[in-house]
């Protein structure tokens, strides 16, 4: 045990040793705490380069305080009754099935039931090969040439088995039938590694970038101003990091202020290539590996890499709609992620949205600072595919939204403002998740699936911080809702979300086990 004083409310917390170096929430004031290593430095997370804020660590988990928590007698009675029921139920289960040890990890990283066995050597055998010439869509640094064939089987509608597990009575309807599984595992996602999981991706992102602060009015690297207006809007995204090549850079965010000096020690290009190779992007994409990492973080990413790779995977199957949604989500996480801009441009060119595609190409170029992603050649080729007149002048970040192509009405905006506004005050995260789920249900009910999915993801993000005892039940219902929305809209992601909801069943059992 070690003691730690909450900076939010000043309460002295007694914590088990395993909390050392982790992040959690104070049980009294719910402030996010970064807990020190025992006898070590103040923060356990990998140190960020000079001039950068430390990267966000593991998702916060509620810390159990060693002190007494006031409990009402009625609640105590209910808890005792529930505990009695659980003991009896467990005894019954053990008697019927025999004893099996429960999974030990009850954190938000656990729901996929992942193991530390190492990389699955086969990858996703069912994922089709990327068509020749579609490497640009696979977010690679190579220059694009030609068109992807789109002849691979689509993820949806190919007649695979479907499970009804996890579909609650309050769901949007019965589980989708006749959908093919995306990965090899249809019941849970075991046997995959944790390499390049969301935490590692966030660390990679932080090592090679500088965070855009909320007050930024310009982006200027080594005296060269990026052609992006209103960069403060970029700072509103979850991970507004501007990637930089190796070396020491002077970055200015406001005119007439001193530049911030930042040193990038290693080359992102090499690391990015390693990630691409690991996931098989540009070849046989390891869909199971990608999906298991998404499931572990309940599809709420703190870095854009995996979402962009997932988009490439859908593109490889010819599902350009799903690919576009993934690329938009990647840019929703970090709008300064150059490869996703280029990939989105490819999607837009396929729908003849040339003006939007030109804007994305220009953004890909702007954020490829010092050719940090090695995309200079690809950008040049993309520019030739659009007319020159459509790329002109600086780009206004305030005018760009990657949430959806659907247009909300004034009443929608009011409803969003009301429910997002009031959800902030929910003391328990699972209740916040429920409120945001209900907002998504409004859009699902009125036939706006993209807006619904956006708000469902917000609900999942809230649930990541919830108490494990309540988190998975609500999250599973949200994922079932998402799957159903996708099924009704004919989106390829339906099976992906269904599998995630199934994977949470194991996590629920793990969280409930003593």
């Amino acid at each position: 045990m070690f003691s730690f004083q909450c900076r939010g409310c000043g309460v002295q917390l007694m914590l088990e040793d395993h909390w050392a170096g982790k992040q959690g929430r104070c049980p009294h004031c719910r402030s996010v705490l970064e807990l020190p290593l025992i006898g070590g430095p103040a923060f356990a997370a990998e140190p960020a380069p000079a001039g950068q804020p430390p990267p966000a660590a593991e998702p916060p988990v509620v810390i159990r305080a060693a002190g007494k928590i006031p409990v009402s007698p009625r609640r105590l009675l209910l808890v005792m009754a529930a505990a009695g029921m659980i003991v009896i139920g467990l005894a019954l289960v053990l008697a019927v099935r025999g004893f099996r040890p429960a999974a030990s990890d009850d954190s938000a990283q656990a729901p996929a039931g992942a193991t530390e066995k190492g990389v699955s050597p086969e990858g996703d055998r069912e994922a089709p090969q990327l068509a020749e010439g579609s490497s640009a869509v696979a977010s690679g640094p190579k220059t694009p040439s030609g068109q992807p064939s789109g002849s691979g089987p689509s993820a949806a509608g190919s007649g695979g088995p479907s499970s009804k597990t996890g579909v609650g009575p309050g769901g949007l309807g019965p589980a989708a039938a006749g959908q093919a599984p995306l990965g090899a595992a249809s019941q849970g996602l075991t046997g995959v590694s944790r390499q390049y999981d969301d935490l590692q991706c966030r660390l990679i992102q932080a090592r090679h970038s500088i965070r855009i602060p909320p007050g930024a009015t310009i982006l200027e690297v080594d005296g060269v101003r990026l052609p992006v207006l209103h960069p403060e809007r970029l700072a509103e995204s979850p991970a507004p990091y501007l990637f930089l090549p190796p070396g020491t850079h002077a970055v200015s965010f406001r005119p007439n202020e001193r530049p911030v000096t930042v040193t990038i020690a290693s080359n992102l290009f090499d690391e990015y290539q390693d990630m691409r190779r690991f996931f098989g992007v540009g070849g046989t994409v390891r869909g199971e590996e990608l999906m298991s990492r998404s499931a572990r973080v309940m599809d709420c990413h703190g870095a854009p890499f995996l979402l962009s790779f997932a988009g490439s995977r859908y593109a490889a199957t010819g599902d350009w709609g799903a690919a576009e949604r993934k690329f938009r989500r990647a840019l929703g996480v970090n709008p300064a992620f150059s490869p996703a801009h280029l990939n989105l441009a490819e999607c837009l060119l396929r729908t003849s949205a040339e003006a939007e595609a030109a804007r994305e190409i220009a953004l890909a170029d702007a954020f490829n600072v010092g050719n940090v992603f090695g995309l200079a050649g690809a950008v040049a080729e993309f520019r030739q595919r659009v007319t020159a007149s459509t790329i002109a002048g600086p780009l206004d970040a305030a005018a760009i939204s990657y949430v959806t192509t659907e247009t909300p009405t004034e009443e929608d905006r009011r409803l969003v403002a009301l429910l997002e506004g009031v959800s902030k005050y929910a003391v328990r995260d699972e209740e916040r998740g429920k409120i945001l789920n209900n907002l998504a249900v409004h859009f699902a009910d009125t036939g706006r699936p993209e807006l619904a999915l956006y708000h469902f993801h917000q609900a999942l993000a809230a649930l990541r911080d919830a108490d494990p005892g309540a988190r998975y039940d609500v999250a599973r219902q949200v994922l079932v809702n998402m799957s159903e929305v996708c099924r009704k809209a004919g989106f390829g992601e339906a099976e992906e979300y269904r599998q995630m909801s199934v994977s949470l069943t194991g996590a629920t059992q793990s969280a409930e086990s003593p």
Partner: protein
Amino acid sequence: MRLNNDKYQMQSAKWSDTFHFALCIFRFALKTSPMLCALFSGLEGSLAAERGAATAADLLPGEFGRIELGRRLVEPKAFPTIRELREAVRRPEIRTVLLFKLFSSGDNQHLPAWSGDGQRLAFQRSDLAGKSSTLLVFWSLAQPQPALVPDRPGAYQYMFRWAVNGPGGYGFVRIDPGSASSRVYVAADTEEPVCKTPDTARRELPALYRRADGIWRLVYREDGQLVHQAWNGGGPVERPLALGRGTSPRWSRDGYRLLFARERPGGGTAPAYDVVVRNLQTETDLVLPCGESAVRSPTWSPDEKHVAFYVRQPGEGKPWRIRVCPVEGRAPAITLGGDVVVNLNFESGGPAWEPSGRRVWFFSHEHRRQAYYPMIAADVASGQLAVVDYPARSTTPNDLAMHPTTAVPEIALVAHDGLPQDLFILLLNHY
């Protein structure tokens, strides 16, 4: 009487027997557990399903019912469903959607203040027993209880101000017990506040600004003078600089303009003020027209194209009004009526602008019904006043703060729901 008593005893015996019988069945059920427990849980499940079915008609497919906000709802009593909310946002008139109590402690709460990003809420609490004042902060609005800003026992802490351009930074004033001087303290996020004015003087009304390059700038009032300080992690970057006699300084978002009330020369003990915008790069003052009125508490509009401040005609018992002056362009200044309820010491962040900058919101003494003061939304272009109803259970409201980003009115206010003054959050259906 006796008959009644016997009847009561018989009934008691009957209930006692029934209870005993039920207890026996329950014990038997536990002993013969697995199958009966499964049956019992199944029965409970079906009952729950039945209860859910009663509300299912109100819910959309996939919608969760029975949401527990963890706050005391004043109106309505239960969290609204999507169908109810849809109905609310369709209504043309501005109406209450939700009012709940965020904090009460038996003491009086005052002066709620939103951080620039709207993610944090600070307020002041009068400790009635200890005759002191403490500052409390909801660092996250999901906190069940606010955190106390570190203080000394018996100290009087007040005049909380969030930093401009630095959402977690803040400044405040502390008067230590037995001391005649007041000091300005500054802190970044949840760090320990640091005193920026250690020597003896009377300081008040801090205004804090954080530059993107890590430099902090602070302006405060020191014995009638406005004083400027700047520092970063390495220490002071500029020597303290006197900006002239004035009060109520407010930074612009770019950090190059300062809005304040400048004291007119020869004012004596009851000075008069002009409202000015000082450009710190060109060192020029733009004087905004306010006539001979008494002025207090100038505030930037969200787009910084207007300034609003409280004005009152000279003379006893005149009502406070709000004057809105354009900073750019040639639009005329406008004085909004309404007999505004003002904070007695003008320590609030008001007048309260809505995020679009279209209207200013306040409580009014006009048309009040005893302790129920109407809420007014005043259009700055036309001067038109709209009366907004809110639940009458919260009375004698004061110190209103509009959320800076939410697209519907999200209002922090203090009001009475009983003897002490508590902190409430009011959400309306639309602006």
